[in-house]
């Protein structure tokens, strides 16, 4: 068995009921990223598919970065939240294709990142590797400079605002 590809057993298997999937989506909207606890797994766009297979909930989850150490934690959190909501032994499938993109972060997710002090990705993933204009999440000035291409995690770069002088994290386009 591959890591991350846990197949549900028979225990707790039951038929799909009306409202199950909607409820599951609602539960997932409350599962937060462990590194950035204001954005949910739905905001990040990492839950790619949700359906009912062989009596259990079946989810397809894609990791943000190949080496993201939060991947296992997020999968554990998702499993726990769904089980607490009454979904017995949900099956999680980890899928790499298509590769996750910051384009999949929702508008609500971007606003939540900004409010948390992290500048959201400036523009689309086509800017990958480039240095776009990044606005300060504190004072909204566009007079900012790149300090380092890698910040506290692989998905972020470190910037400084020349207007309010605050350093801040920027969520890179990927």
């Amino acid at each position: 068995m591959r890591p991350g590809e846990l197949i549900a057993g028979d225990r707790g298997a039951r038929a799909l009921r009306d409202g199950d999937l909607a409820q599951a989506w609602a539960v997932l909207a409350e599962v937060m990223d462990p590194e950035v606890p204001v954005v949910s797994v739905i905001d990040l766009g990492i839950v790619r598919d949700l359906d009912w297979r062989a009596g259990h909930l079946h989810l397809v989850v894609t990791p943000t970065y190949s080496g993201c150490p939060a991947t296992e934690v997020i999968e554990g959190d998702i499993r726990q939240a769904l089980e607490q909501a009454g979904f017995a032994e949900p099956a999680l499938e980890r899928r790499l294709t298509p590769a996750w993109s910051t384009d999949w972060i929702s508008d609500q997710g971007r606003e939540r990142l900004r409010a948390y002090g992290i500048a959201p990705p400036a523009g689309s993933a086509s800017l990958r590797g480039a240095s776009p204009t990044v606005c300060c999440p504190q004072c909204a000035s566009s007079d900012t400079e790149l300090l380092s291409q890698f910040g506290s995690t692989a998905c972020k770069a470190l910037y400084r605002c020349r207007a309010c002088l605050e350093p801040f994290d920027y969520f890179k386009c990927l």
Partner: protein
Amino acid sequence: MHKQALIQYLLLLGDSALVQGQRLCEWCGKAPALEEELALMNVGLDLVGQARNWLDYAAELQGDGHDADALAFRRDERAYRNLLLVEQPNGDYAVTMLKQFFYDAWHHAMLDGLSASGDERIAGIAAKALKEVTYHLRRSGEWVQRLGGGTEESRRRMLEAIPVLWRFTVELTVASDSEVQLAQAGIAADPTQVAQRWHAAVEAIFASVELPLPKAASHFYLDGRKGLHTEHLGLLLAEMQFLPRAYPDATW
């Protein structure tokens, strides 16, 4: 035959990423600046994650009950298929960043080709890794420029780093017969294109700060693809594999 060639190719990709990632982690706690520490560890983390994706696939193809962890922690040096370049010691920051740049330029060209592989699993892993490596290559190229075109001392160190690493670059522009066959089958990256793109990337960065480009490196008796490594890999593995070998199946 095809399956064995594919496993060897996956080990070349996975072992190179793993060993490069392990080398980067040796900087943990002693990088020259906090920002550099973060960058080195994040690049290392990307590479270890990518290595796991490649080794997972290699282990599945082998089908002998071993998983990616077993491949990483229970193989001896002669079974490793990484590039000789990445097992070289970190040296000073000029050696570290030049090594990273030589590797990134190869890695980027390989992943770009592999994103179009006829093997869907390979194409998926490569397409994801390519996004990450775009940032690695940009950073390491800028460091070669910054040190090469910087102060008198930084330039001297970059000039000294070139001959330390150059002879190992021969492996970045050649391919084994089985790799050529895999490429013809539409699975591996085209070795000719990888070599051209590697040369183009290195020439551009070197020319931008007037670093002298040595003439093409020639083959010597060691060959990472055959498991014939320099003495440095054994020491690296001794450290990396100590815990799982001393305490088999330990969990925490």
